[in-house]
Every structure is written in C-alpha cells, then in structure tokens.
C-alpha cells in the first residue's frame, strides 16, 4: 500500500473535503457530493460458485442449471475453489487484506429469479477486508480511494417481462454464478471520480482475469450511494441507485441525483432515504422504494456451509503468481520505455491495448510504436467502431510496418498510406509495399535528376531561396510530388542544399 504525502488521500475519511472544483453550486452556496460504490463483478470461471453447472453467457433457457441452482429441496452447495482463488486474487489487486477466515450467510428475500428464497452471500466476515486503489483524474490529479471490503455471493437468475401476457419468464442460467461485491468507502467526491474509480476497478479485474469487465453483458455493474452536504458538515441522508451498468450512466445518475437532492434541501425539504433506479433514456433517477419498504434480509450463517479457511501459504502463492498490474505497467512504460505519463496511461488503461503495444514495441522504438498505436491505429479503430482485439492490423503486422520505416524501405509518409491499405485489407506490409511499388527511392542519381529538372524550370524560386533558406521546403515538396512521395526525405534535403548552395 502506498500513500505519498503529496497525494490527496480520502482513504476512509468521510470528513475529507473535496477540492472546490468538485463542489456543486446551488442557490444557497456550494454543496459537496459524497459517493460510495458497490461494484458487482461476475467472476470468470467455468462452473458456478456452489454447483457444477456452466457459467457460459447466454445458452438456451435453463440449460445451464443444476438442481442446486434451481433451489430444489435437499440439494447442498459445494464451493468452487477456483472462485475463492479469484476473489483472493482480486483482493490482492486492490491492495487489500485477505481474511483467512470468512463465513457464508443467507440473505433472505423473495423474488422469482431467486429460487432458494435466499442468496448465499457474506455479511459479517467477508473474504477480503480493507484496501485502497489510486485513481487518476482527467487533470492528472491522483486520488486514493478506500475499499471497505470484497465478498463472494451468488448471482440471481433473469426475468423477462412480457407485456402481452402480463407474465414474467424466468431463466436461471445465471443463477448461482459467482459474484464479487466490491464495496468502496464513501471516499468519492464527484461523478468524475466515481467514473474513474469504476474504470480502474474494471482495468484491474481485466488484468487479473478475474472478471471480463463486460458491462454490456452485465459482468460489471454498480449500486451507487449518493448524498450531499455543505462542506465540513456531517454526512447527509443517502439514496441508493440500483444496478447501473455503464460508466457513463453511473456519472449521469450521480449528477442527476446530487442536483435533485440539492434542489430538495434548498427548498427546505428533507431527503428521504430511498432506493432509486436510473433510467438511461431520460437520464433521471426515480423512486423504487422508501425506508418503510426497505428490505429486511435477516442474514444468518448458512448452516449448509462451514466457514471458509484459507492458509497464509496459499495467499502467498497467489500473490507470487499475480500478473503485472496497471499501475506497475504504467510506471514501467514511463521509466523503462520512456513514454509520457499520458501515453503510458492510455496504453495501460485496458489490457488488450497494453499487450498490443508491448508486441509492437518489442525490439523497436517504443515512442514510435506508441505514436502509431494511439494515432493511426486508435483513429482507424474508432472510425470503424472496432475494439483493438478485432483490429484488422495485428500487432506483429504494425511492427513489420515500423521495421520498413526503420530500415528506410519506406518513408513515414508512405507508411501512413500502407497502414490504410493494411487496415482495409488486413494485408502484410512488406507485400503491399512490393506490389504497389512504394519502396523509397534512395538512389541519389534518380533524385538528382529530378532536382536538376526542377531547378532548371524554376529560376525565380532558386533566386528566392538564396534570400530565404526556409523556402527550401517548396523544393522538397516539388521533388516529393515528382517522385510520388517515394524519395528519401533526408537524401532530398541533402542534395537540394548542395545544388542550391545552402549551408548544411
């Protein structure tokens, strides 16, 4: 765990105040937003937390369901040891304390997609305790956010509501899949911080391969707790917004909810403690239930499961096997590969980008590799609405293109042209350069001949360039045009300077 004195550290201190730029101005002055996130991350595993049924996404209705998942009488849960490992791995990635003793509890409520009538979860003794992660904001500020706990629990099934028949169709394929609930401390002070926090969690679990982080498929989502207060005052009454499933929606929901609460308070009304839902179409939150209808879960230890005890040596083994995490990778990209803070941040923000970059940079100029990936590649991917994993230009192909620039087979400018062709056809750069005759002309005789022609045809420009040496650019342009961009720029410059009698 690191905490430099230079760093604004909210870690666990609800009295920590936000910078004034994060406050919201109301009619009665400035307000501070206090946010806590409960992130639900679906564990990557083959089988479920307490049964041998498949966790595969989708599938025919109720095809990935065992009698345990269906809550049939007499069925006993048996824990999947890999899911436990995944939770430990994630806890270590969050710089958190791993508890060698934890207990499974029953969280009781009735809903058709929960056939047991209770969710097996952890309450008093979670598998992972306090931790903290660093979150970087747009302006470069780094905020340390405290983690309260991480516990293991079961996912519920899925209900499809059918308007026509006024029925709900229940599919239990997801029922019993392992989830990690990661609870933050109320350390977040703005929508931006919350967005950066969940993005960081997503990056960490993706690096660890403990959760795929796919928010569209609901692999990662959050319950968002929001309250407001005047800076320095005690915490206000909070509202919880359930099940928000994108970074953008989380930020929108916080903005809306904070302003709703401020409006109420400024009109002299009180905040009712509520559970609310976010509507992504309107951008608004609406009431689901108030305090009087708040769920009473009657947690108690699950008598079907003994306490979960983990050996210290096992935790150490897992710690030793952790992959390089985003913060460490970013530091390495900066110190060893000489990338800027910004470039290293972008390239480590998701694992596939980092892997792509490392393949391209291997044995090549890292800065050149970074520029090509963040410029040409990301630009083209954005335009084509593709993820980097689906890039038509693979990392080794881009590497081969950079080699062609490096050994002066083609100029940087021609390389852009070749890249476009590669992106459209998925072709090999060496072959494209061969087939299209794009090889750079380094034959000085050929370049000289072109230059002589141009000098002879443009006596005025020749006179001018003696006065203004910078006008040489015009000649370079002419030579490039005459050679279809294939002339080696260094050679062109050198020969031009000689022929025009300029220093250099």
């Amino acid at each position, binding site marked *: 765990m690191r905490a430099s004195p230079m760093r604004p550290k909210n870690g666990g201190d609800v009295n920590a105040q936000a910078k004034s730029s994060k406050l919201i101005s109301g009619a009665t002055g400035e307000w501070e937003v206090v946010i806590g996130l409960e992130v639900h991350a679906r564990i990557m595993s083959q089988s479920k937390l307490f049964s041998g049924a498949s966790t595969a996404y989708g599938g*025919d209705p*109720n*095809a990935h369901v065992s009698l345990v998942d269906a809550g049939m009488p007499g069925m006993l849960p*048996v824990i999947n040891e890999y899911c436990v490992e995944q939770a430990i791995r994630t806890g270590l990635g969050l710089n958190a304390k791993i508890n060698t003793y934890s207990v499974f509890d029953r969280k009781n409520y009735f809903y*058709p997609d929960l056939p047991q009538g209770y969710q097996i979860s952890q309450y008093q003794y979670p598998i992972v305790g306090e931790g903290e992660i660093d979150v970087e904001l747009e302006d470069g500020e780094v905020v340390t956010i405290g983690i309260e706990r991480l516990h293991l629990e079961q996912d519920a099934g899925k*209900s499809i509501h059918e308007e026509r028949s*006024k*029925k709900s*169709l229940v599919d239990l394929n997801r029922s019993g899949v392992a989830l990690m609930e990661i609870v933050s401390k109320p350390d977040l002070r703005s929508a931006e911080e919350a967005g950066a926090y969940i993005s960081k969690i997503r990056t960490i679990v993706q690096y660890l391969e403990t959760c795929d982080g796919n928010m569209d498929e609901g692999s990662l989502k959050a319950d968002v707790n929001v309250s407001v207060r005047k800076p320095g005052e005690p915490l206000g009454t909070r509202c919880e917004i359930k099940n928000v499933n994108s970074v953008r929606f989380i930020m929108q929901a916080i903005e809306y909810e904070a302003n709703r609460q401020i409006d109420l308070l400024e009109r002299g009304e009180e905040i009712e403690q509520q559970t609310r839902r976010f509507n992504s179409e309107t951008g608004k939150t609406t009431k689901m239930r108030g305090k009087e209808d708040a769920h009473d879960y009657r947690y108690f230890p699950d008598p079907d499961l003994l306490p979960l005890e983990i050996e210290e040596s096992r935790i150490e083994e897992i710690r030793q096997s952790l992959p390089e995490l985003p913060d460490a990778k970013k530091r390495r990209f900066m110190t060893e590969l000489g990338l800027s803070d910004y470039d290293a941040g972008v390239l480590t923000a998701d694992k596939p980008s980092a892997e792509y970059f490392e393949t391209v940079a291997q044995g090549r100029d890292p800065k050149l590799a970074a520029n090509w990936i963040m410029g040409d590649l990301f630009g083209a991917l954005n335009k084509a609405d593709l993820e980097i994993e689906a890039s038509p230009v693979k990392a080794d192909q881009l590497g081969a293109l950079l080699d062609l620039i490096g050994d002066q087979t083609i100029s940087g400018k021609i390389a852009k042209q070749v890249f476009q062709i590669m992106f459209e056809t998925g072709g090999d750069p060496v072959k494209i350069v061969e087939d299209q005759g794009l090889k750079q002309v380094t034959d000085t005789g050929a370049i000289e001949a072109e230059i002589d022609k141009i000098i002879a045809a443009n006596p005025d420009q020749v006179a001018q360039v003696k006065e203004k040496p910078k006008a040489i650019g015009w000649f370079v342009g002419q030579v490039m045009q005459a050679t279809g961009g294939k002339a080696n720029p260094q050679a062109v410059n050198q020969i031009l300077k000689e022929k025009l009698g300029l220093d250099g």
Partner: protein
Amino acid sequence: MSVDEHTVQYIAKLARIEKPVGDELKGLVDDLNNILAWVEQLEELSTENVEPMTSVVDASLRVRADIVTDGGYPEDIVENARDARDNFFVVPQVVE
C-alpha cells in the same frame, strides 16, 4: 428478549405466510417467547475463551474443482413448475 404481536405479524409477512390474527397470533407470540426464554437460559453459561463451534465433527469446508459437471436438462428443471413455456418458468408478472 421477547416479541410482541406486531413483531410476529411482521415476521410472518417477511416469510410470506398468512398474517396470523386472534388466538392463533396469541399462541404464536407465546410459543416464540418460550423459545426465546429458553435460549436466554443458555446465555447464563460463560462462553468466554470458547471458540464458536461450527461443526460437531472436526471437518473443514469441502471444495470442488472448477469443472462443468452438471446442467443440460432444462426439461427436468421446469418439470414441476406450475407453468412453463419453452423451458422458461412462467410466473405472474413481477416488476419491482
């Protein structure tokens, strides 16, 4: 510790069973209070320095390897359902 009529009705509501009234309610209040009183007697024993017993035999949590060994019989899963369609359970619409 004891429960009153209001608490017993609340517990019934949480358990989704019919709300007890009249003599039935009184009987339940008495029964539950008897049980609670009996449990309270246990508290007279000092359990300081005694670890909570989670099992009567010396056993540790049984674990499974992460292998798919079950599932693939959706017809059986919905066989006893009051209503089913295309291997979905069909229930009255629930929208929270």
